[in-house]
């Protein structure tokens, strides 16, 4: 008989605790999958091609992120520094939002390797958000914690404390932007449009939905209310998406007046300059970052790779060793250390670094990178057989490694096997049409054999990939002479 009495009491207890525990659990669930929205910037194929947000279609050089060939000089040429896609040099630090050029047509986008343009395999639209949501549901065996369709959002919007936690849950955990936006709209109304936080959240929702101008409006109004670094970063993201790098730069510089020495802002400026291929300004700003925060991994890595490709491997080595001191311990770092050691003539540490890199490699692509670089070391010591084996191993690990195909072809050519070299070069140029080396080598090879038509086509592709290449220009001139002569 006692039981019936207990029950109601217990229930009342539960109800009174409910909001605190409920809010706590939402927060815990959100934090499990939380990724900072600022760094979440992925463009799928659809956003890259079908989306036309940029106002200027043919922007002046130096004012757009979409024209890779807008370098104002100062940076190393493709003959020295490898490029990702047509003219964008590879960066020292890969972020989720890193983009290496854009495909110009849908067909081209489907044909290129999936990781060629962004840091992750690209999807048709930004599908990652959806996948994050589904992934989190699998971890929860009892099904979803909150059934969104049954929530009365207007009720929650009345209670700001609950609403904020719930919004973050809906936005980050469930990735249900539409419901999140509904809740945010109700909440900001309830707060009489005086809470900048809600404005920023609405802006985030708009941004996700692709409504960049609306998002810009919300962010601007939030900035008027309250200066926040976050808001500046969000607004800059909008401008970058609209392809207005100069506006974003201005915004960052204004932000720096209000928050002098803010690392994320300086770093943002540096990233924009890097995207615009203005490497020297980017390096200056990365150095400013290091003055504020001398453990900034991105800045160290970028300056390091910059020094490496401008004939200063010793200095690059110091930067990478700094990373090592800070406790970074991964395949790429040791790979870079090995390269720097070799080119800086620190022969005692070269091979052990590469060994460690091989040991730490997490997937086959990384292993392939290490073998590829080992091949370069082998070429450097003149052991061409070893180099041959290394490049072969690169291909075993990663069958789409265009650089390795090219280098193998060069080695085959040295042995005099023209046919093999030709096939390898063809593979390389079909895998990576943005590299000028396979095209150029193929042109030379065909010219040598006397097949001037193929030589000409290949030389033209080479010129397209690297317009400033002197030898290509000479070759084309020579071929044209052949064609005009009677």
């Amino acid at each position, binding site marked *: 008989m006692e039981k019936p009495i207990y029950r109601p009491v217990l229930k009342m207890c539960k109800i009174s605790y409910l909001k605190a525990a409920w809010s706590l659990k939402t927060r815990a669930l959100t934090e499990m999958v939380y990724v900072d929205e600022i760094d979440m910037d992925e463009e799928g194929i659809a956003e890259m091609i079908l989306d036309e947000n940029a106002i200027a279609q043919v922007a002046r050089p130096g004012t757009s992120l979409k024209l890779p060939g807008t370098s104002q000089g100062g940076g190393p040429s493709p*003959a020295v520094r490898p490029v990702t896609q047509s003219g964008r040099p590879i960066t020292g630090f890969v972020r989720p939002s890193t983009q290496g050029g854009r495909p110009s047509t849908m067909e081209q986008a489907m044909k290129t390797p999936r990781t060629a343009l962004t840091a992750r395999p690209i999807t048709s639209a930004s599908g990652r958000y959806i996948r994050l949501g589904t992934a989190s549901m699998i971890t929860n065996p009892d099904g979803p914690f909150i059934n969104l369709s049954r929530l009365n959002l207007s009720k929650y919007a009345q209670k700001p404390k609950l609403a904020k936690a719930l919004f973050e849950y809906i936005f980050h955990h469930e990735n249900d932007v539409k419901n999140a936006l509904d809740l945010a709209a109700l909440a900001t109304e309830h707060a009489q449009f005086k809470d900048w936080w809600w404005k920023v959240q609405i802006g985030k929702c708009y941004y996700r939905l692709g409504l960049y101008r609306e998002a810009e409006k919300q962010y601007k109004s939030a900035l008027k209310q309250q200066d926040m670094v976050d808001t500046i970063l969000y607004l800059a993201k909008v401008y970058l998406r609209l392809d207005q790098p100069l506006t974003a730069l201005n915004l960052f510089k204004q932000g720096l007046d209000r928050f002098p020495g803010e690392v994320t802002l300086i770093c943002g400026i540096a990233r924009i300059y890097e995207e615009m291929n203005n490497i020297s300004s980017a390096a200056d700003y990365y150095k400013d970052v290091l003055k504020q925060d001398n453990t900034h991994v991105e800045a160290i890595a970028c300056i390091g790779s910059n020094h490496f490709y401008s004939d200063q491997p010793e200095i690059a080595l110091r930067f990478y060793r700094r990373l090592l001191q800070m406790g970074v311990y991964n395949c790429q770092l040791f790979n870079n250390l090995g390269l720097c050691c070799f080119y800086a003539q620190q022969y005692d540490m070269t091979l052990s670094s590469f060994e460690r890199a091989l040991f730490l490699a997490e997937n086959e692509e990384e292993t392939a990178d290490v073998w590829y670089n080992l091949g370069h070391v082998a070429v450097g010591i003149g052991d061409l057989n070893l180099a041959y084996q290394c490049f072969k191993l690169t291909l075993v690990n990663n069958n789409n490694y265009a650089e390795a195909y090219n280098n193998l072809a060069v080695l085959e050519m040295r042995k005099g096997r023209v046919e093999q070299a030709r096939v390898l070069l063809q593979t390389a140029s079909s895998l990576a049409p943005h590299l000028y080396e396979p095209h150029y080598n193929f042109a030379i090879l065909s010219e040598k054999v006397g097949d001037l038509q193929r030589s000409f086509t290949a030389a033209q592709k080479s010129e397209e990939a690297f317009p400033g290449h002197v*030898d290509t220009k000479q070759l084309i001139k020579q071929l044209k002479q052949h064609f005009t002569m009677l």
Partner: protein
Amino acid sequence: MPKKKRKKEAPELPILESKNWLIYLLYVHRDYEECKAVIKEQLQESHGLCEYAVYVQALIFRLEGKIQESLELFQTCSILNPRSADNLKQVARSLFLLGKHKAAIEVYSEAAKLDEKDWEISHNLGVCYMHLKHFNKAQDQLNNALELNRHDLTYMMLGKIHLLEGEVDKAIEVYKKAVEFSPENTDLLTTLGLLYLQRGDYQKAFEHLGNALTYDPTNYKATLAAGSMMQVHGDHDVALSKYRVVASAAPESPPLWNNIGMCFFGKKKYVAAISCLKRANYLAPFDWKILYNLGLVHLTMQQYASAFHFLSAAISLQPKMGELYMLLAVALTNLEDMENAKRSYEQAVALDKCNPLVNLNYAILLYNQGDKQGALCQYQEMEKKVSMVKESSALDFDPEMVEVAQKMGAALQVGESLVWTKPSKESKSKQRAPAGKASSTQQPLGSNQALGQAMSSAAGYGKTLQLPPGAGAAAKPPSLPLEPEPGPDTSPEVPAEAEEQSKSREAGD
């Protein structure tokens, strides 16, 4: 009815070649778009029977690099007019551009039957034979072409064949005639200058290269060759200013950076030299000359580990060179690996025929090891070479080398050699350094860059320079054991036609 028909037909008969003048005019004005439109119109009117329209269309295709299409159209032309040597010539030309040299020869022979007095046919036959490596036939055809009509290109090809067969003197004769015939052709002037350079005839080489530079001040090849000649004579500043002219035009040229590096080396700016050479090496990892120079500079900087590294890399790319082994041995000596140093010296002595330094250095090593007998042997070997070289040419030996050799002679208590006039009376205790020095001398044509050779364009034959041994052996002050100080060395290169491009790549992190 038949009457009526005939009446109608007569005025309708289209004039096949009515617009040839317009097509020609547009083609010559390079207004290809307009020209194509007129051709299309003309072909429609004549149902494809207008020979000239097809012909010009084929020429335009060829200009655009579509050789296959142009070949088909020229074949149509020769079907329309089988008696024309011109059409056959164009068919053969297209075949040649496609790399089908045998077929091209056949068609050219056909054309030759129709027109026997055409220099172009002979010239092109010669070029085809050259591609097929029938040099004798090629020479005949080219000489034939010269008799019919003298032409720069024919001279060029003939000279090239002589070079391919290794007959430098004949090639020089051919180029001389060519320069007389057309004295303003910079290509001919440059090539002739380079050939003189290769033979060591500096006066004439300078003359011709200078002429080439007068006509074309930014000529890359001529500038590089002229710069390297100045370097040989020690005018490093002048050479550098020459290089500056071309550096902006060809910022990624390995031979250029190599030569700039050696200029700095000559001016004793070693760090600058190393960074220039390393840039060159980064751009052309298979070029043994750059590696050789890097090894040399590092020996001078007394960084023996690096020197060994670069020299051994150079050896694996160019295994047939005595001086490389000698320098390697010097590096090994300083790395305290006497066994391998000896072996390396033996290899060097076996490979080298005319550089006395090799033997001198070996003698010093043996002497320092206490092997007086062997040292004496090498010393005599060196004397033989010295007297031989003295007879053949009037080269001056580096005074430092002579000095060390004299000390060595005294130490070995050899009778004063016939070679050097004044014996020095140095005491035995004076040990001299291995004279580490050399200069890159004769490489066979084309060994310049093995790959460059493999991939070099048809127009380029491997060009390398022969330089006189600018050898300097350095003696160190007494009591300092074993310190090599290589003297200045330059091994400038003339441009190679092709370099492979391979890059190092950092993994993105």
